């Protein structure tokens, strides 16, 4: 398990180095990491926070921000969603063309109902997605987003360590940008503005 995690980590590092090399060769308009052509198109089969089975085509037509997390995460996940809420507010009317998919990596506790209460507390553009462990793992593996369940604590609660990147897809489901939690709201607003503007970069 450790080795697998390390292999994924090493893989991610190599990918980011390749991106860095590519970016230096062209005057890209992006402030975030450009992953166009380096990550597969958005594909999944999950259940939304209304309890409905959904697939990626159901979410085409909007710029999509994909983020993995879980509701029993009191610190980093809410911080990221609160940041994205501010970003959506700053985008104003353009935000109508965007959606945030919050995919649970803790399907045992994150039922559609629990996810619904959680995501609506942050922003109307957020959709909660959960599903079978296999379907969720397929999606995290697709984007090389590692996650693992930590040992149980007293009282049966547990934490899930997880990748905190935000994957951004265009309205056609093509992978375009990768943001990390340390990327500023300014960068997100700048790049999403470009992606969302009519005749922009889509």
């Amino acid at each position, binding site marked *: 398990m450790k080795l697998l995690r390390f292999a994924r*980590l090493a893989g*991610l*590092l190599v990918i980011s180095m390749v991106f860095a090399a590519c970016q230096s060769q062209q005057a890209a308009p992006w402030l975030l990491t450009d992953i166009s052509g380096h990550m597969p198109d958005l594909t999944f089969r999950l259940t939304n926070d209304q309890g409905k089975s959904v697939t990626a085509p159901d979410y085409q037509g909007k710029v999509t921000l994909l983020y993995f997390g879980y*509701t*029993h*995460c*009191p*610190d*980093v996940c*809410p*911080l990221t*969603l*609160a*940041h994205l*809420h*501010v970003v959506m507010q700053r985008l104003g009317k353009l935000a109508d063309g965007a959606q945030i998919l919050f995919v649970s990596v803790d399907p045992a506790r994150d039922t559609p109902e*629990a996810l619904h*209460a*959680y995501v*609506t*507390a*942050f*922003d109307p553009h957020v959709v909660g997605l959960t599903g079978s462990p296999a379907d969720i793992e397929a999606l995290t593996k697709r984007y090389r987003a*590692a*996650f693992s369940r*930590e040992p149980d*604590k007293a*009282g049966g*609660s547990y*934490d899930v*360590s*997880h*990748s*905190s*990147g935000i994957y951004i897809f265009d309205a056609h489901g093509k992978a375009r940008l990768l943001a*990390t*939690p340390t990327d500023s709201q300014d960068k997100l607003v700048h790049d999403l503005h470009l992606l969302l503007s009519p005749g922009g970069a889509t």
Partner: protein
Amino acid sequence: MKHHAWLFGFMMLLAPIVHAAQADQIKPSHAWIRLLPANLPAGAYVTLDNQGASAAVLVSANSAAYGSVMLHQSTSDPAGNSDMHMLDRLVVPAHGQVLLAPASYHLMLQQATHPLKPGDTVEITFDFADGSRLAVPFLVRPANAAD
């Protein structure tokens, strides 16, 4: 010999006066809780300024409003994987500051004893290594509050 014992006793009497209790040295500010729905674990944040000439060592925290209060730290590696772990103690250096802030040190609050809403104030008490205690009022803020 007798003289020394007397002197020692006198110094012990003075000790609490010379060395202020750790809790008294700490000035808390910007204390708030990010409230999450459905009684989910919540994060609490505060800035702790140590105005004393000696370190203050935070060893635990508790609140009548929560069944469990734990001192945690979120960490992340260069690849962006984030992780959380429990701390036994947190040192606020002499004349120094420790920030309990999102994605860093924080209190994890679990099992709220009664429903809370944004705008409420919750008192959380910090316990220090010398046995002194500091009660701090925390403002309850909505889930999507910016720091």
